């Protein structure tokens, strides 16, 4: 960092050097100086433009009728453990450690068929130069950034043993102070911004916030079912809102990502909207009705779809330009009954004027069938 030297001009410009390849595996450089970590699902990484950016808050709106938010949490936590990133997990159950037993294992590489010929063969094939980079990309189905998780196999012991995993139960605390303390101590291990102060002619003190160019380690926080009716604090909405605000402010100065799932129908509409606004990345899960003949006609692959994932907001840090996605609704299914896949829906044209407001897809009331396709 710039040390205060004796100079003719006390004003020195500090150009932060962005390293092209980060030192630690599991990170990817993104636009505008952000760094991404993998979500655990390759399709979701692609949809979000790389993954979750460091320092962002991801909120997932649950559907009380579908358990798919657990899959999002599981892949997120497993990815962190595979990449050796410390984890903090909080849930409203008596024994949160038990959840770690349900985490999926990365799918074995032997089963992946190589989709492109080896590079050695490519030498003899005389591929035009601009196509080489596509060949290389195709080859790296196994890389250290993200993994394809086999939802059926439990995570191997080597990833669980000896890793710093902190589990907190949200059940017994009547307020959120326990959770706040855990988050604060956890996030203090991953500081991102350091404050440099230097003198200006001996009179003024200039403070400068500088990005630490060496990212020492990354943390992941997963909070499940934050507003669950089982928790005692669930009727204290202002406390819940201030907890999330605190978490978000701590995240902004840390090299960590937090994912919080909550059922929006458990809150009053105004609190639910406020929580949604606080999110940097906002996703929601919607259950799919079973045995619905209309949907079967409208969607291809209806039988394999387990639920819908809507992407409402994608995090944009250090820029004002929003991300406009081609499609906001994806179907969640299990490929080969093991690997989570998110696909765009193939369906007949629907009324383009049905706008998405964040909260509508979170409703759990038995509304009419056209409500299921509210996107």
């Amino acid at each position, binding site marked *: 960092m710039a040390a205060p030297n004796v100079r003719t001009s006390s004003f020195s410009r500090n150009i932060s050097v962005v390293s092209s390849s980060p030192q630690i595996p599991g990170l990817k450089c993104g636009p505008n100086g952000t760094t991404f970590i993998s979500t655990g699902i390759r399709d979701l990484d692609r949809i979000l433009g790389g993954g979750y950016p460091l320092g962002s808050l991801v909120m997932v709106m649950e559907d009380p*009728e579908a358990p798919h938010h657990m899959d999002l949490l599981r892949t997120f936590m497993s990815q962190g453990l595979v990449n050796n990133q410390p984890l903090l997990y909080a849930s409203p159950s008596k024994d949160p450690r038990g959840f770690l037993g349900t985490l999926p294992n990365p799918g074995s590489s032997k089963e992946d068929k190589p989709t492109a010929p080896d590079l050695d063969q490519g030498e003899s094939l005389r591929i035009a130069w601009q196509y080489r980079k596509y060949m290389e990309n195709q080859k790296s189905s196994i890389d250290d950034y993200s993994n394809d998780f086999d939802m059926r196999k439990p995570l191997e012991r080597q990833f669980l043993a000896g890793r710093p995993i902190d589990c907190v139960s949200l059940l017994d605390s009547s307020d959120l102070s326990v959770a706040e303390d855990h988050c604060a101590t956890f996030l203090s291990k991953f500081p991102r911004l350091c404050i440099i102060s230097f003198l200006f002619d001996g009179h003024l003190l200039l403070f400068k916030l500088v990005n630490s160019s060496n990212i020492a380690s990354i943390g992941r926080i997963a909070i499940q079912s934050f507003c669950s*009716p089982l928790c005692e604090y669930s009727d204290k909405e202002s406390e819940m809102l201030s907890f999330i605000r605190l978490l978000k402010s701590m995240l902004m100065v840390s090299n960590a990502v937090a994912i919080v799932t909550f059922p929006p129908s458990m809150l009053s509409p105004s609190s639910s909207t406020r929580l949604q606004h606080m999110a940097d990345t906002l996703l929601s899960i919607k259950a*799919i009705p079973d045995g619905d003949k*209309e949907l079967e006609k409208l969607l291809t692959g209806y039988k394999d779809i387990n639920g819908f994932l809507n992407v409402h907001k994608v995090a944009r840090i250090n820029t004002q330009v929003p991300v406009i996605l081609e499609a906001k609704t994806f179907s969640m299914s299990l490929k080969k009954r093991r690997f989570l896949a998110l696909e765009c829906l193939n369906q007949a044209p629907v*009324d383009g004027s049905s706008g998405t407001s964040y909260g509508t897809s979170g409703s759990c009331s*038995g509304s009419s069938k056209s409500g299921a396709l509210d996107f």
Partner: protein
Amino acid sequence: MADSIFRKLRDGGEEGELAPALTIEETVASPFALDVSCYLLANLSSSILAGKSKSEGLVLVTFSRSPSFYLQFLKQKGIFVSSSSKWIRVLDCYTDPLGWIDQPSPGVITEGSSLIKLHKCVSDLKRLFSSIIEAGREMVGDGKTRFSVAIDSVNELLRHSSMPLVSGLLTDLRSHAQVSSLFWSLNTDLHQEKVTNALEYISTMKANLEPFCPSSDGKRNALENLFLVHQDFGKGRFHIRFKLRKGRVRVMSEEYHVDQTGINFSPISSVETIIAATKSLIPKVHFNLQLSEKERVEKEKVVLPFEHQDHGKSTEIYDGRRTLADGKTEATPLSSGELQADVVSSGKGGEIIYFRDSDDEHPDSDEDPDDDLDI
């Protein structure tokens, strides 16, 4: 179908899983949750007695009706409860929920009174939980045999305790190894939507009763509305939502009809629903894909500008100039600056005004214009 709920409750859950739980929701306009509970009670009791059910006993916790009401009802259905019955226990929270009466009144001797345990102090939910489990264990012993629990009405529970405690109690019951299934009823008009949502969150099945004609919403202006409500009071729709394991939701509907003997279910008979279903299959676009009846008739009437129509005579079509054979001056003279175009007017009878491409063209010139080329 109400039968499918009964079967789900009868079969209970698998080992290691939480017990299936049903919420029966009623409103002021269709206050028949009691009838539904009695229906389920009768069916469960007969299946327990016949040995067809996974559970071997039933604990009934009564809040809104006295135990003798239920025993009477079961007697009506042909199920006799005596003091030596080993399959049912009743926890009486109706007579004295808050413990105001010190001594039980001597005149009250009911059949099977040894089965009925008076429970005071409803607000202490931990004690209630242990009494329920104790009553169950009295019936089935301590081992692996299971029993079902029926809670008369959760409204009274919510009156005395807060939502997190009540959901805690219900979830504890669900997770107890010896409880095979559980159901309760709720009047949704008495509580905020959050409460209803929270109870739906912790249950696996939700049944709600909807009257045929919509409730007046406080606008009691039309007398005829009242008459309709009165006429259709005992009838309505019964909707069920099941949460399936994969994350899908099964929705079923039936019609119900309440009379002296209880509640009867029948499949939906109205034709309107079928039409509504097909209508929603058509994609909602901004243009009109369907023709109304009037539009269809008009379409038939339109005379197309072809000279050879199918009906055997050649049609005279006004073509912008006066033919030699035609001396009438029927149409208004058109200005010569008129563009050569086909205009479909949308007036009555659907006129088509046709202008020929060129004046040289003879009428009915189907010949190939290249025929006069001599090559």
